[in-house]
Every structure is written in C-alpha cells, then in structure tokens.
C-alpha cells in the first residue's frame, strides 16, 4: 500500500535550479525527526555537492511525488533508495551532458563538489550544464551509487538544517503564516462527539466587534473575525442547541498467530503463569495545538497545514469544498510535533469551511482545551498473557489476547489491523508455539495514531511478563531473554545494553533497581535498561536510562540519538504520569494541570543512547522504537527496587504503595 506502480520521474525528485542549487523533493514530513537533514545528506553525497546547496522540499502537493503518509518510522527506510537513485541518475545525466559538451567519453569524467571535472584540468559547474533543459526522465531501478569512501555527509552527525531558524524565532510554524487579508477563526463546539445541530441563533454574535461571518456547514459551526480574541468572544455568543448521538467505535476479532498445540502444551507445562496488564488511554498532547490556514477561492484552495499526510488532507479538503483534487494545493509547514495526531486533518477541514464561508484566508488555531477534548487519543489496552515453561525453564507455549480499540485513522481495514492495532503483539522470542489474538472492542473515545501505535502497549505487557516468567522460574531476566532470542542482531543489542549499564554486576543503594526490556520494531533492534529509585512513599524516580539501538545503516547518528532519547523521555512520561480521563466519549482532562506530562524536573539524570547500526543492513526507522520498551524497563526496575510488580500504568504512588503492601 505504500508503494506506487509507475517508475518515478527525475523531475519529481531532483531539480537543478538556475542558481546552481539543487532542490530535492519528498512527500514525507519533518516534525522534528530530522529527516530534512538526512535527505539533504543523502542527496549531497550522491550528487557530489556541498550540502549547503541542497534545498529539501517536503510535502508540497504541487511539487512532490505522491506519498501515502509519514508514519511507522518508515521515512528514511523508504526514501533512502529513492532519493539516492534519483540523485545518482541526475549525476549520470550531468556527466553525459558534460561528455557531449567537452567531446570526451564519460569514463574520462568525474564529479567534484558541484562540478564535472575532466581529469582535474577542466571543470564545469553543474549549473552550466543546465542550458535551459531540466534534468528529466524515468528513474532506473538499479544505478551504480557513490561508494561509501566518497560519501562525505551520510554517517556524520549533522545539526538540523532548520536549527538556526528555530532558535531565532524565524521558523514559520503553521500558526505563524500571515497572508494579506487573513482573518481568524474560532469554532463553536458541541457538548460531545457525534452531536447534530438542532438550532442556531447567531444574531448577537454577528453584531460583535470584528466579526466578519458566522459560518455553518452541516454540523460544523464557526466564527470568522478580524482578530482571534474577537472570533473567540463571538463563538461564545452563538446560541446553539445540539442533539447528542452516541458514537461507538467498531469491534472485531483478528487472529494474528495460531500455532497448533498451544493449549495442549500449556496443559502439560511444568510451570504455567498467567497475568493481565492494563494501560489507560493517553493523549498525543502536542505543545502546539492543531492549526491550519486556508485560502479558499472560487477556483481553488491553498492550505497551509501541519500534517502527516499532505495528499490525504488534499483529498479531504477537496471533498469538503467540492473541488477537484488538482485545484487544492497543500503546503505543509513546520509544525509542532504531534506524534501521529496530525494524520487526521481536523483543523484543515474546519479552516477550509471557514475560509469558504468568509471569502477570505482564515487562520484557525485550536485552544488547549480543544486539543485535549477533540483530538484522537491512544486507546486503552488490556493484555492477557499465559505461558508455560518446560522443566529446564524454556518457554513451551504462549497465549496472548490483546483487547484494545482502533489505533489508526485507517480504522478497521482488515489488511492493516494486525500491523496497526496489533503492532508488536507477536513476541520477538522463540521457538515455541504461540497463539496471538487481537480483540478490537468498541469505545466512545475518539482514538487514532500515536507514536508506535499499539507496540508500546504490547511490549509493556510482553516485556513485563518475560521478567515475571524469569522470576517465577528462578532465572535472571537477561539470561532468560537470551535463551529465547536467535536473531544475532537482536542478541547483540540486548547483550550490549546489559554490559553498558552494568545490569548484572555491582550493588545499588537500597530502594534502587534496574530493569531491562527490548524489542524489534519494524526491523529496528532496541534494548533498554532503566534505573529507578522508589521512595518510601512509593514515588518512582527515573534516574538513568541506557539504550542500544541497531537501525541498520545510519545516516545521521546524532539525529538517531536525539530521536531515541526523545522517545525514551516521552515514554517515561506516559509510564509514570499520564492517564486521559473521559466520560461518555468526552475527554475530561483538558489542561496541563489535569493531564501533567514530564517536566525538566522529571527528566532522568542521563539517557545514554548507543547507536550501533549494522552497516550492512538497510536503514530502518528510529522515530518510534525508542519509545517502545521504556515502560517495561521502568516497571521491571521498580520490581527490582522494591519487589512491587506493577501491571497497570501509570506507575502512580498509590499503585506502587498498594503493590508493595500486598
């Protein structure tokens, strides 16, 4: 589903500009993962060009090739071969042009930092080979690529290309876009999901200062005014009556693995253990609430948005406005990280409706309360695991039932359920007979994509349970895992993190403990050790985290470290603090006071990330894997520190105290 059929054309990927710079094009989006920088590194190397002359355009639907969306930590893995091939093809065309111009065979020519050289004595800058004729043509699949010895940027740590704009405040985030004649919008919200508009009286609102229009389309109501304060004040003055129609999510049972003999093996196991793990719903909780700028004209629309899916937003907006898709241009802007939330184009659709109604460009930025109340969230999960061990302490059989709700905007598409809502439910261990079943159960909460989807939930259960099995059979958590890992790359990250953190040796102060957890996430291998202190009152303090990650060939090692560190820090916040509360489908925790996340004071003293990629393996993603094993590493560390086994997140003081007492 992520691949297109036709070969890509060079002009959709690489453009040599008249000023000698090169524009590289991709449908992927950078929310802070640093892919813009990684792509520039790849193209600069393959085209043999100083990186300062590479300009990366991401997601502009008028320029870039179709892309399904930025998620699943796939960007670098998918785009690396495409961009390298495209750049290599561009370089070959430049060499061929130079060959014709100089009347020397191609094999006598080479490139050097933005120019074609003829054995060093003649030098033609690429731009002089342009001659008004753009580089073009279908990109061949197999092209000779630059040898590693000639790649100057890939593999080197690079500061982010946007860094200077960000620290000077010049970076233009979505809500910073200013267009001539632009107005501000504010929505009138119903009391719950799925509400139908019964009546509307906007007489008073229309007369308020600055108000340009009260817009209604179906059940969507909003106000457009000269200033945001005015739009908000007037939105509060629109009198509306709603009819509440309860919304329930879908349900389904999906067998993910059904080996023969699981029940029989469990029955004859010499040790059998069954446990249940529970995770609450949590919020993506971006620091910047959803925003969009829409400029809708009678003959077309331009949208400035933050999105994972520019082409998806184009489709949604075109449908909303009744325009053909090619009349809608989506221009993704730098945006607050949203960790999956922006897969859905809520603000964009609303802004488009407001702009159409007002006949002028409109900026809509949600309030903090709206962001909590109306965004999709990561659904809750309840995970039941049973395993049986043989007398030597090997796992014989494994039964796993995942109960959760839909984890993506794709909903119930049976083709993707097992890799979305059921992501990482199949344990990375073997060999043993396993049965794994995903049960999607209805919820009234609006749920969708959040960093790693269900993987962080499943891996919390699986990795906590591995520790429990080890304890029940008198084995060390590390050794028990290694007995069930065959893949050498997986073994290596587990062994390395144990070694690096001193997991097996040394003594810790009282009430301190270390725990290990690991996983394989979309072919990225990651293992972590967390060290915690559990205070006498039951407070869990995360002190240190060690992580070893193998994402294959690494393009920007510091970018990888930053992503993994961030994943760990965010996941520690989920684990220790976060629980979204909702009633009748309505989120009730709608501010940072009711939904606290980790602050500077909660950050561990250190997060050490070793990037030990297998250079012979293709690059894999790093945006999500760091967040996946952290919860179990912390819970396992709590057990090591005080003997309390916590099977429910977040690890609050009350839960720790109760578990210690029992």
């Amino acid at each position, binding site marked *: 589903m992520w691949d297109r059929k036709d070969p890509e054309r060079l002009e959709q990927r690489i453009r040599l500009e008249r000023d000698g710079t090169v524009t590289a094009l991709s449908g992927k989006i950078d*929310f*802070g*993962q*640093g892919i813009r920088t990684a792509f520039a590194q790849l193209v600069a190397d393959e085209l043999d060009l100083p990186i300062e002359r590479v300009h990366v355009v991401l997601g502009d639907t008028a320029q870039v090739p179709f892309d399904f969306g930025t998620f699943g930590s796939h960007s670098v893995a998918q785009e690396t071969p495409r961009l390298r091939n495209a750049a290599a093809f561009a370089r070959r065309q430049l060499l061929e042009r130079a060959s014709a111009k100089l009347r020397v065979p191609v094999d006598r020519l080479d490139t050097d930092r933005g120019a074609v050289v003829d054995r060093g004595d003649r030098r033609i800058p690429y731009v002089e080979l342009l001659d008004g004729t753009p580089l073009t043509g279908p990109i061949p699949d197999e092209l000779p690529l630059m040898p590693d010895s000639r790649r100057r940027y890939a593999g080197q740590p690079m*500061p*982010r290309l*946007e*860094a*200077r704009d*960000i*620290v*000077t*405040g*010049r*970076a*233009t*985030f979505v*809500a*910073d876009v*200013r267009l001539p004649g632009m107005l501000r919008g504010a929505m009138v919200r119903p009391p719950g999901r799925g509400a139908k508009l019964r009546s509307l009286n906007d007489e008073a609102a229309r007369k308020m*200062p*600055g108000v340009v229009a009260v817009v209604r389309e179906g059940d969507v109501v909003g106000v457009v005014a000269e*200033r*945001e*304060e*005015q739009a908000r004040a007037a939105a509060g003055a629109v009198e509306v009556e709603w009819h509440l129609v309860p919304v329930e999510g879908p349900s389904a049972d999906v067998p993910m693995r059904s080996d023969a003999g699981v029940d029989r093996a469990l029955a004859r196991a010499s040790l059998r253990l069954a446990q249940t793990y529970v995770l609450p719903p949590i919020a993506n*909780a*971006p*620091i*910047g*609430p959803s925003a969009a700028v829409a400029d809708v004209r009678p003959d077309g629309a331009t949208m400035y948005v933050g999105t994972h899916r520019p082409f998806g937003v184009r489709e949604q907006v075109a449908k909303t406005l009744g325009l053909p898709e090619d009349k809608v241009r989506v221009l993704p802007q*730098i*945006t*607050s*990280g949203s*960790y999956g939330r922006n897969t859905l184009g809520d603000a964009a659709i609303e802004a488009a409706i407001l702009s159409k109604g007002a006949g002028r460009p409109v900026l809509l930025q949600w309030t*903090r309360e709206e962001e909590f109340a109306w965004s999709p969230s990561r659904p809750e999960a309840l995970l039941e695991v049973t395993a049986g061990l043989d007398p030597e302490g090997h796992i014989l059989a494994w039964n796993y039932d995942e109960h959760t709700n839909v984890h993506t905007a794709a909903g119930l598409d049976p083709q993707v359920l097992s890799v979305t809502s059921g992501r990482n439910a199949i344990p990375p261990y073997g060999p043993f007979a396993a049965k794994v079943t995903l049960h999607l159960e209805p919820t009234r909460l609006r749920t969708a994509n959040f960093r790693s989807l269900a993987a962080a939930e499943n891996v919390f259960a699986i990795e906590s349970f591995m520790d429990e099995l080890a304890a029940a059979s008198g084995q060390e958590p590390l050794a028990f895992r290694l007995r069930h890992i065959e893949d050498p790359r997986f073994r290596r990250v587990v062994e390395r993190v144990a070694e690096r953190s001193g997991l097996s040796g040394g003594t810790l102060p009282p009430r301190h403990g270390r725990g290990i957890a690991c996983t394989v996430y979309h072919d990225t291998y990651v293992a972590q050790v967390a060290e915690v202190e559990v205070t006498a009152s039951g407070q869990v303090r995360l002190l240190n985290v060690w992580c070893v990650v193998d994402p294959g060939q690494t393009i920007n090692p*510091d*970018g990888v470290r*930053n*992503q993994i*560190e*961030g*994943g*760990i*820090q*965010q996941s520690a*916040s989920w684990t220790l603090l976060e629980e979204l509360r909702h009633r009748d489908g309505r989120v009730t925790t709608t*501010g*940072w*006071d009711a939904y606290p*996340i*980790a*602050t*500077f*004071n909660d*950050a*561990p003293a*250190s*997060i050490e990330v070793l990037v030990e990629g297998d250079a012979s393996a293709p690059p894999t993603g790093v945006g999500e894997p760091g967040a996946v094993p952290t919860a179990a590493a912390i819970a396992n560390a709590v057990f090591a520190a005080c003997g309390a086994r916590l099977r429910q997140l977040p690890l609050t003081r009350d839960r720790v105290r109760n578990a210690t007492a029992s």
Partner: protein
Amino acid sequence: MKLTLTVNGARRDVDIPPNATLLSVLRDDLALTGTRFGCGRGQCGACFVIADERAVASCLLTADQAARMEITTVEGLARGEELHPVQRAFVEEDAMQCGYCTSGMLISAAALLARDRAPDEVAIRDALAGNLCRCGVYGRAIRAVKRAAS
C-alpha cells in the same frame, strides 16, 4: 486602545482591543511570531518572554500591563546575526526536535544566565521547569544551558 510597548529595545505603537494579551499583540500586531501560543493559561512556557528581567508567560499579561515593562522576545536575543550564547548552544547540542517549545526554553535560559552566570544543574532544571517539551529534549537542553554558561 492605543499603547506604546518597549519590545526588543524599540518603542512600538499599537492600537488594540482592551484586555488583549501581550502574546496576541506580539504575534498579531507586531509580527513577532517566534513567541508561541501553547495553552493560554501560563502552564506550558511556549509563550515566555523576558519582562523586566524575568521570564513570564505572555499569555497571562495584558498588553496594558506589559506597556510598563521592558519586553524581550526570542527575536531580541541575538545581536544582529550574532546568536545569544544560549541560542548557539541549543544549535550545537541539537537541543530541539519540532522546535515549538524552543523559544520559551531559550527565554527561560537567557533570563537565568542573566542573573546567575554559572548555574548548577538543579538551578537549570528549576529555571526551565515551566517549559514543557513533548518531544523530550530535556537532557539536551540542560546540556545546552550548561554549555552556554561555560
């Protein structure tokens, strides 16, 4: 309502609705969009500015109150093209991901370093505790402030 604000060392005249916040005036009247809206309740730090030497939430100050203060926004930290030491350090440590909270962190850090040239880690954490970051760059930001101080 007509007011004169002192922002980044310059006097700026504005004509705004009464009770407009400093944040909305910076962003919508003065085109200083580096100061960001995060929550409107002073709980996240995205909109921090330096007001008379202290880092404060510009969403909680009315422009009227701010007119009596010297305001510095993230755009006012650098001197021309020369970055403020905290800006340079944040770039060098790559202490950002999406960058939405970065302006606020830089403001807190700059205010801290102006009153304490060599803060220890506890002081750094305390000074930045009002700045939420969802991407999780706390560790790098602490390193960056230490680097800027040295």
